[in-house]
């Protein structure tokens, strides 16, 4: 479909954001209804006639006409966006105003306003991510619940509560206010990072859902990069990180959806176009002195991207990068990744030593890959019984069927008699896996 298999989803996010500017943020539900209605009609017509030449324009016009109907019918009784009230009152100004807000550039700006609004400080990070998925990416409650492997009722409750907070914020975030924008930017970056992470490390068993989440995060980060206040070095770094890591998605699971460890991935299946884009974004991220955690994680991803294979990976650089990351962003998971890199460079014994040196290892006991890392290194030292024990613990902590199958397979490898393979990072974890620590939606 015009090369866009998610046209409806993307247009829905854009149009709901634009109509919310006119109706007012307290009327978000009305904007969603109008868009839903316009899309239903589009489907009724398109299914028989076929897709029009310019489907986006078609959907926009359908939504516009319905919005005008609603505004005319209810302008005396209802309160819409207060700053537009006078323009809505008069027939002379109503249509030009609506058309102005539904111009392509303005829609893009509304999308960005909505994105910034969704990252309201009163909302938890998980709620922000859920709201972005629901409003900007037009995922239904069920689709979000299935992506996060959580119950419909819990997700619905979270979304309803979050939308209430949004409605109380009176108006959409103003993208023209530099100080406010800069204040809100880190939260937006963080939410998009978590969205990407959920796709990469998260719970869903469906490969397509996982790549959808990653692709949505990449798409929304690109929107951020189009705004002069949004295109900071750290946003470029975030985009580089997602693009370089996202390039590995096609190789990360096999045809049955099983995880493939980084060293076993067929690098021919990495998306070359994405890798090139990612390297370019990484270059753009170095346009200032700012050095964010995203910069470092993107740099790690770029080292992997440039390596021909696991054995050929520049582990020295990766260790140095993790050293910096531990300083900026102390986290036991980052330290674990660093220890794994040390094992790659110096051998399993040094790796185990580095893991044992992690401060506060009790914070890692619920993280399955902690046990798996210990297991992997014991296995390389040929201590199969200890390795099995660790993989059993990893299996017990596995967060989704995909991880469960992966650990079961490693456990089976401990018990097999053939020579144990293994070099390179054991699994694909250059994006710091935070799903475990932030709680899921």
């Amino acid at each position, binding site marked *: 479909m015009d090369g866009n298999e998610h046209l409806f989803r993307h247009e829905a996010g854009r149009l709901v954001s634009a109509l919310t500017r006119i109706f007012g943020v307290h009327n978000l539900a009305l904007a969603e209804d109008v868009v839903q209605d316009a899309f239903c009609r589009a489907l009724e017509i*398109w299914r028989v006639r076929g897709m029009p030449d310019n489907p986006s324009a078609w959907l926009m016009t359908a939504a516009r006409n319905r919005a005008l109907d609603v505004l005319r019918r209810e302008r005396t009784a209802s309160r819409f966006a207060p700053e537009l009230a006078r323009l809505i009152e008069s027939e002379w100004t109503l249509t030009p105003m609506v058309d102005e807000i539904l111009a392509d550039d303005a829609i893009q700006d509304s999308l960005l306003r909505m994105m910034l609004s969704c990252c309201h400080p009163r909302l938890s990070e998980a709620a922000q991510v859920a709201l972005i998925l629901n409003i900007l990416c037009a995922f239904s409650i069920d689709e979000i619940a299935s992506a996060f492997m959580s119950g419909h009722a819990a997700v619905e409750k979270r979304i309803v509560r979050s939308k209430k907070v949004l409605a109380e914020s009176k108006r959409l975030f103003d993208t023209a206010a530099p100080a406010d924008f800069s204040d809100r930017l880190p939260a937006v970056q963080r939410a998009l990072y978590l969205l990407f992470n959920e796709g990469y490390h998260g719970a869903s068993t469906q490969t397509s859902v996982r790549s959808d989440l990653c692709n949505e995060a990449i798409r929304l980060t690109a929107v951020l990069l189009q705004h002069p206040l949004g295109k900071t070095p750290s946003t470029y770094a975030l985009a580089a990180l997602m693009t370089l890591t996202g390039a590995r998605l096609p190789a990360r699971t096999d045809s049955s959806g099983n995880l493939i460890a980084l060293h076993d991935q067929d690098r021919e299946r990495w998306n070359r176009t994405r890798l090139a884009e990612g390297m370019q974004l990484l270059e753009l991220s170095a346009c200032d002195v700012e050095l964010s955690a995203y910069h470092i994680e993107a740099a790690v991803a770029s080292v992997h991207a440039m390596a021909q294979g696991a054995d050929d990976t520049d582990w020295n650089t990766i260790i140095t990068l993790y050293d910096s990351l531990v300083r900026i962003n102390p986290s036991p998971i980052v330290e674990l990744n660093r220890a794994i890199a040390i094992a790659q460079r110096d051998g399993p014994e040094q790796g185990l030593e580095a893991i044992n040196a992690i401060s506060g290892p009790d914070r890692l006991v619920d993280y399955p890959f902690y046990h798996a890392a210990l297991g992997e290194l014991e296995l390389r030292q040929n201590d199969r019984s200890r390795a099995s024990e660790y993989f059993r613990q990893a299996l017990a902590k596995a967060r989704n069927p995909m991880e469960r199958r992966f650990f079961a397979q490693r456990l089976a490898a401990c018990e097999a008699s053939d020579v144990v393979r293994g070099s390179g990072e054991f699994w694909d974890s250059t994006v710091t896996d935070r799903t475990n620590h932030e709680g899921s939606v």
Partner: protein
Amino acid sequence: MTEFLFLFRGSQMAARSPDQMQRTFEKWRAWFSDLEQKGILKERNPLERSGKLVQGRAKDVHDGPYTEVKDVVNGYLLIEAATIDEAVKLSKDCPIFDDDGSVEVRPVAKL
């Protein structure tokens, strides 16, 4: 070869996510593209949701739709097939049944 008219009825779009809408659309697209490839599709059109009904000797004009939602015709196509059985067989692959709609298959009168 006989011409057949397919009348699409019912199948009001129940609430669904944009992605589900897109999947529904893709099914229809695949169905039509199959008919086109067979070279038997002559015409296809969706209808507006409402219209007028002119009725009786007095030619009274009423607003449509005139029946229950499930009976409202919302589109049609014209197709060529050898027999009514073959036409019916073709209609069975129509994705309208996923949405509880129906297809009325009517041969165009020959003589």
